[in-house]
């Protein structure tokens, strides 16, 4: 019986399953653009701006930092801070000003020929986690088929009903953020406004002794849209049922040329971290 079923699946797969091949495909290359990474937040360790340049698509060499630029942070009270590039790492500009919830911030970058500036974004509060604990999934209590059993970290939070909220969750093990889309999740409260969201988990099984950290931060609507598009494009498999990729424009635009913009996003957020030791 099992053989018949497997034979059927094999035939079906050979007929219907699509295939992927790596191909040589020429693309036109873009003139260098500034890439903005970083944010102003309530947390000194997260307050920095890192500026680099994009690379040719097939270039796997080191990323070139953008140095010697005039970088300024503004708030809605008229205060500003000119950022000084750190000698420790080229292209990194620490921010001394601490972000305050409810206040709006913008960023300006001046090169020798152009000025790029972001629209003000309000620093929104991030709801705290209600819990973070470890949970064992066995063969019999898996939430969905196919997931192998193991130790997961579950967490939950209650959305603030009074505000439109957008959140970013990231996962770190032993204080090192994990790379990749699977550990980089954005959530909006369009369908869960005011609700308690339970049993959120990254698809990662943990070992005893590992220190699990959930980093969660508030996002502006623009940042959410930006990261959502980034996630969709990086997760793309070219399926007919996906939104075709398109340009994801950052929030810093050339003040004199609407077609010129920076890549990346200047964030304004509250950052929280919760930890759990797997036993």
């Amino acid at each position, binding site marked *: 019986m099992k053989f018949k079923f497997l034979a059927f699946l094999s035939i079906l797969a050979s007929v219907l399953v*699509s295939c992927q091949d790596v191909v040589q495909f020429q693309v036109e290359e873009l003139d260098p653009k500034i890439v903005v990474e970083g944010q102003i937040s309530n947390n000194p360790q997260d307050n920095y701006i890192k500026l680099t340049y994009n*690379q040719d698509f097939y270039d796997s060499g080191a990323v070139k930092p953008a140095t010697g630029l005039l970088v300024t942070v503004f708030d809605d009270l008229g205060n500003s801070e000119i950022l000084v590039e750190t000698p420790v790492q080229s292209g990194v500009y620490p921010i001394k000003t601490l972000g305050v919830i409810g206040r709006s911030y913008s960023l300006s970058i001046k090169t020798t020929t152009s000025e790029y500036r972001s629209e003000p974004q309000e620093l929104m509060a991030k709801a705290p986690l209600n819990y973070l604990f470890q949970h064992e999934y066995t063969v019999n209590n898996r939430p969905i*088929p196919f997931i192998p059993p193991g130790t997961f970290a579950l967490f939950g939070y209650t959305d603030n009903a009074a505000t439109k909220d957008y959140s970013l969750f990231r996962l770190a093990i032993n204080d090192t953020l994990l790379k990749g889309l699977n550990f980089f999740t954005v959530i909006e409260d369009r369908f869960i406004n005011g609700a308690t969201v339970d049993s959120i988990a990254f698809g990662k099984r943990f070992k005893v002794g590992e220190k699990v950290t959930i980093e969660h931060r508030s996002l502006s609507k623009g940042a959410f849209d930006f990261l959502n598009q980034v996630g969709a494009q990086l997760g793309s498999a070219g399926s007919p049922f996906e939104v*075709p990729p398109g340009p994801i424009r950052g929030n810093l635009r050339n003040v004199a040329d609407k077609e010129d913009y920076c890549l990346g996003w200047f964030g304004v957020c509250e950052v929280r971290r919760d930890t759990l030791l797997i036993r």
Partner: protein
Amino acid sequence: MKFIFWCLALLFPIVLSAQTKVSISGYLKDASNGEALIGASVYSDEAKTGTASNTFGFYSLSVSPGTHHLTVSYIGYETQKLVLQVSANKTQTIQLQPSGLGLKGADITAQAEKRNVQSTEMGVQRLDMKDVKKIPALLGEVDVVRTIQLLPGVTTVGEGATGFNVRGGNIDQNLILLDDAPIYSSSHLFGFFSIFNPDAVKETKLMKGGIPANYGGRLSSVLDVRQKDGNNKKFAASGGIGSITSRLTLEGPIVKDKASFLLSGRRSYADLFFPLAPASSGLRGTIFNFYDLNAKLNIILSDKDRLFFSAYKGQDNFKLADFVEFNWGNTTSTLRWNHVYNSRLFCNTSLIYSKYDYLLGTDFFKWTSAINNTHLKHDYTLSLNNKNTLSFGVQGTYYNLDPGKVTDNKFGPDQALQRKYGYEHAVYINNEQKVNSRLSLNYGLRASGFATVGRRFEGQYSNPNLPTDDTRLRQDTIPKGDLVSYYGGLEPRFSATYLLTDVSSIKLGYNRMKQYIHLVSNTTAAVPTDIYTITDRYIKPTNADQLALGYFQNFENNLYEFSVEAFYKKYTNLIDFVDGASLIGQAYLETQLRAGQGKSYGMELYLRKTKGTFTGWVSYTYSRTLRQVESINFGKWYSSNYDKPHNIALVGTYSPSKKWDFSAVFNYSTGRPVTLPNGVYSYYDLRIPAYGYRNNGRIPDYHRFDLSVTYTPKALKENQKYFSSWNLSVYNAYNRRNAYSIFFRVNDDTGKTEAVRLSIFGSFIPSITYNFNF
């Protein structure tokens, strides 16, 4: 109203002049099963004029009193000649015998053969289901929609994509009708197969241009699919067993020659194997199937009245154990009453219901959505004289759209997007006029309108011309029944044919179309969860003006048909989606849509061999379709997603005997546009491709070769009632991996960026189908 009055006033003299004539009218039918014949020809030698039966098989020919030698012909049927003495209006129902040979060796009169040259139709393609069934099909599933993609001017974004694109139009710009009921999703299995069961279909007609005034509501084409009426002579059954589905159709008389029925069903059966799965796999409860049910009732109440009731239900079902379920489908029903007031005036009244809905359910929530609409049509055909046939009528549609609601929500309270209500209405008049022996005209006017009404929430924006989430000021509530918006306008239609010789003509066509309902989809191919929306304060109707010019020529005693058509189409208020648009569960769609303009232009060449042991066609299309939307690509023109300049189709069937049919299809098209990256950048620990202007590149060109052979065993006895055939098809015979898309990623192992080709079909696909009928 004033407009209608003036139209009637202008036509009054024509009506008076018609009184010196008499008419011969009635129905044209298939003698073997009583099916009405659509577009069959009736020609009087004495009057030197002819006519064609309408969609319901009714004809009316205006002649002088006296003796008339009539020639009645239809492709695939024996021509019938009869002599009538006509002194007053005469009713004459005529039944034609099928030739039994299909197109091979049939005695087809010149009138029928030259219809492509002499009629005022432009951009019209008819599919004979007998021919469609011989063409190689994916997994042996005879498919109307895939076949029309082989016709000039028709393209698709790729294999397995729902719908089709006509002369640069989006898939929602095609009015797809099944017995007059609009179909909103024409595909099963996410787009691999169409919903039209070939055994239940009588005729398929695609109109790409020169669309008569009785059709409206979509910009680019009309695909008019008619179900069989049901055999009113004898009980019959047909069906087939294929690789994916099996089919069974039953039809027969309820009262011979008076009432008949048709029941047809088709179901896929891949999921019947899932119970064989190991218990530990969790797949035993899996459901994965689709089905179609067609039904029709046809009652002849009297010589003057006929009643039809047809219904369709089709659904796709997917359920993965108890974790996720997803189903979607169409439901339609049509009640039609044909009434012949007199030999000149024919009336059709239709009440139509159509619904498309889907359900997406998980352990955490259920998401449902539906499009409901009800139509009432009242149409007249008035044969004024042998030179003028007038059509006029009124049409109304009520829309009730349920964009989506969440129930059984484990995350919070159940939620629903606001329903949308609207009324579309139209009045039209159309005249088909033979000016002289060389010049024929078809001209009409359609006045349409659309009222969107409450109850409804409406966002108010600081800049209503550019609504965004950031500029929304507040949300107003419009009470139930109050007008939200109203749009309307005139849609002139015109086509002319000038005969250069008996077998060649030039044709000119113009039409304006308006569309008040739009598909909300920004995926490469439409998905079952895509919804439609109607016009409102921010989303305006889309307009298209199309001008076409064509040359038509038949050769070798009408053995070959040739045509070349050039067209130019201009769109206004064309809708596209902003980069990164968020459409699922979107309460303020206007923030994600932008209106712009578009244009399509091209040339279509078509050469068809209509009879003999070898039949088929060659088509070549060059066309472009471009758009300009202010906030996309910084206002620069860009290619639409289905802008594929070169398209070639070669379709051939070789039938050396009654037993064997060999068919082959070759299809080539330019790769569709895609947006390519022009760099990569690092953001946190992610390497992100930086994409350039929308649709700044193309995937590789597409080509494919298919083969099929059909074996029909010879009848064992003289009066054998049971016939069968075997069809063996090979799709993608030379095993080409056509790119559906090229996508770009960072290789997890090497950390390098790379381009990846996704092919929907990775190999050739053989299939075998057994068909029967008795």
